[in-house]
């Protein structure tokens, strides 16, 4: 299993003095997938990425990338990975072309054909000094440097911020192709729509700990969704009370509202015994699920007595 994992962390923990970075983080990112890593600011996303890049050292726990230990084999890992943070800080005195030539030399990339191809797709300005470029144009150079050596894994940390919607779409297309060729993407973001758009699996981090990690479909399936049924005539009072995985929320005249956990088929089977005139089944987007988790947390925080 470990060989199939691009990233594996076990009880990875980082404290900055007494401040929490991440705590007992267990992550499994499979090779060839785009893994969305979502959470609000301060949840521990950037700390996780910096731990994986060996920029900071864990307080305890372990992490491997492509089967190699992040601490002792960091240089070998970085030869096979690319990195793009939300606001890439580069050498402002160099032009994009000079920077890519420098990074290419360090990475051992002699053929720049792929880089030029990507630059054309992203309309990147390579001949201007980086210091004179807008944030979005700098970010395009960042995308090029992260992918120039066709890495096995790229770590994107809020990487699309600054890109206009057209360029974001172009980047999603590039990442789709990259995945199709076997590449893995660790995609840290707080833009849930883009995570839904491109990610195969999603991990949700809260207070430095991963609280949920699964495919988007599985996460959605696990969620309680509201089912609203409209009948030609009022159904009996015990309607939907015996179906497992379904909880009737209300019944008023011909309208029944139920919360469906995982047995939509059972609910529809019972409904089919009556004349149904309308059905509404709530769609749960990642944003709803995400907010549900965080709202729950805020409620429990509020319930905790202050010290």
């Amino acid at each position: 299993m470990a060989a199939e994992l691009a990233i594996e962390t076990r009880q990875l923990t980082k404290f900055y003095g007494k401040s929490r970075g991440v705590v007992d983080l267990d992550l499994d990112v499979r090779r060839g997938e785009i893994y969305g890593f979502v959470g609000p600011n301060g949840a521990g996303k950037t700390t996780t990425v910096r731990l994986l890049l060996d920029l900071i050292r864990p307080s305890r726990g372990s992490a491997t990338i492509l089967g190699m230990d992040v601490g002792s084999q960091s240089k070998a890992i970085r030869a096979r990975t690319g990195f793009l943070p939300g606001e890439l800080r580069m050498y402002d005195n160099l032009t994009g072309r000079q920077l890519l030539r420098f990074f290419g030399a360090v990475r051992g990339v002699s053929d720049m054909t792929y880089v030029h191809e990507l630059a054309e797709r992203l309309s990147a300005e390579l001949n201007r000094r980086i210091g004179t470029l807008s944030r979005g144009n700098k970010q395009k150079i960042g995308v090029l440097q992260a992918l120039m050596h066709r890495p096995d894994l790229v770590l994107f940390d809020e990487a699309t911020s600054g890109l206009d919607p057209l360029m974001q779409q172009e980047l999603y297309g590039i990442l789709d192709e990259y995945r199709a060729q076997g590449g893995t993407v660790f995609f840290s973001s707080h833009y849930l729509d883009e995570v839904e758009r491109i990610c195969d699996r999603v991990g949700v981090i809260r207070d430095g700990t991963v609280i949920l990690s699964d495919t988007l479909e599985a996460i959605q399936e696990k969620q309680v969704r509201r089912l609203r049924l409209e009948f030609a005539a009022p159904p009996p009072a015990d309607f939907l009370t015996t179906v497992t995985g379904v909880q009737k929320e209300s019944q008023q005249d011909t309208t029944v509202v139920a919360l469906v956990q995982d047995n939509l088929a059972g609910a529809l089977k019972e409904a089919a015994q009556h004349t149904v005139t309308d059905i509404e089944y709530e769609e749960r987007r990642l944003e709803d699920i995400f907010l549900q988790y965080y709202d729950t947390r805020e409620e429990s925080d509020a319930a905790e007595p202050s010290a």
Partner: protein
Amino acid sequence: MLRNLLLKTLRDQRIPILAYGLGLGALALLIVAIYPTFAEAGADLEQAMENMPDAYKAFTGGVLSLTEFDGYLVSQYLIILPLILAIFAIIEGTGALRGEEERGTMDTLLSLPISRSQVVLHKAIATLISIVFVLIIIGVALYVSTQFVEGATLALDRLAVILLNTFGMGALFYCFSLFLSATLPSRRLAGVIGAVFAVGAYFFDAITDIVEGLYDYRVLGPFNYFEPLAILKEDLSFQNSGVLLGASLVFLLVGLLIFRRRDVAGI
């Protein structure tokens, strides 16, 4: 010029190299060119020097005569050369690690397949090469100017040893600043401590020379190992330069070990 971090660092330093080299080279030309006016002053100047307080002599390299070219060159130029080079060394040394971290470029640099040790060593070697370039320009300016000024004689071998000794001072200030850059939480703090160290070392040397009872402590200061007058007047010795380069190496290695172990600061 962008094939590796060493060459990139040299490229980044090309303007300071030219500025320091040409500036200090021009100053050398000027100092040597006006030497004849000092030589002509002859006995009057000798008398004036004799009446100078010991403190003045201590701060000008222990020179006793300004009419002799050796003493003149040391007191008017060579003794301050390490302090001017220290400005370059401290800026580059503190910027090498903490500066890159504070600009946020260290994260980008360390996302490349380059180890932290390589980052330190490439930057250190490049800056030491830059100091050599500056000293070569100064050396050429000094040697050429002495060929055209009457009474100004400077043997090539002695000039080379003086430049080596000066390089030792520059290397020490750079490596100490790099060590501070690896150790302290901000570039500004590292720069302030580096500057205090350089200027303090100069004063320390002079003070231990004139205050009775402190003389034995001279060996603790780097300027004790910078003796251009002795190189010009006595036997050629590499011992002082060896001490300075050895101390530089210690600071470099300790800084490297600290940087390898600690967290890289984010922005």
